[in-house]
């Protein structure tokens, strides 16, 4: 029981950190990474809830099936987002990748 809670809260921390980074960072690559971290947290929570049943019987297959498809979908979404970010970089005038220094400061603008 305590192990599952540990996994659940680990996933929750990943989700929150990803959410914070998603809002705080303006760089598209960081945003994509943040979404991935968030997704990993959600998967971890789902798997932990499936695993919780170990004491009473078998593992719940429904969250497992959700995570299984979710991983593949998140990979494809990441790929599409990366291609879009590359296109933005190519077509816009200012470079997104080189803007390193004021990454965190552009939150409010």
């Amino acid at each position, binding site marked *: 029981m305590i192990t599952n809670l540990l996994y659940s809260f680990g996933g929750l921390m990943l989700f929150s950190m990803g959410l*914070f980074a998603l809002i705080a960072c303006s760089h598209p690559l960081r945003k994509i990474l943040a979404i991935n971290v968030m997704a990993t947290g959600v998967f971890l*929570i789902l798997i932990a809830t499936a695993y919780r049943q170990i004491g009473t019987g078998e593992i719940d297959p429904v969250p497992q*099936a959700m995570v*299984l*498809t979710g991983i*593949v*979908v998140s990979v494809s979404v990441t790929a599409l987002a990366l*291609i879009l970010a590359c296109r933005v970089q190519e077509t816009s005038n200012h470079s997104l990748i080189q803007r390193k220094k004021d990454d965190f*400061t552009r*939150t409010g603008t």
Partner: protein
Amino acid sequence: MRRYSTHNKRKRLNPVLLLVLLLTASLTILLGRAILTTDYQTERLGDDVAQFQKLSGVESPVTAVLLNFRGYDTLLEVMVLLMAVVGVWSLTQAPFPGKPIEPGPVQLAVVRLLTPLMVLFAFYLVWKGSSLAGGAFQGGAVLGGACVLMLVSELPWIKNIPSRHLRIGLLAGPFVFLGTAILCLILEGTFLAYPQGWAGSLLLLIETACAVSIGLTLACLFAGGRPKDDLSRGRKR
């Protein structure tokens, strides 16, 4: 200058980021409370799955949920994968094959040894999906890995694959899945309600087609664009 910039940075980033941090922290606390207070032991869908397991045509509960009980969901997810490839293909052209490189003998030998094994293992995973852990998504991932291995070693025949064949491979899974669903609609009157006794074989058919499509999808996403000969006629880039 250095000091000024850091000072400036700190002054500009503090209030907004603090607010965001505060909101995120409170959301975390709320979600943590939800995790702690939810009762996972009495309300579980696993019981329903175990009850109707026999009707699903497969022994593995995860596969049964994936393709039978929540088949609608999986059908749409396969469509999402297809849409991702459509999006990527419409945005850019693949940088593969780039300038011709000579892969080392070790790399070629490894690719030659590993790729058939990986393809075999992928279909073994699909086959095993009816009784144990495995299935279309796992098999597709291994297949995608094999394709990526061939892509990065720039085998000479990779660039000669016509895009039409790729398109057929990419569409196989979604079309077989959708076709089966429509066939069920005609035969049984309900979308994705497999006929009695045929569920096992139909699921295997769907899984095999989907594994091929998922593997190709992942490889195409890795390649990062449409093949060179795609849309080449009547259009200049």
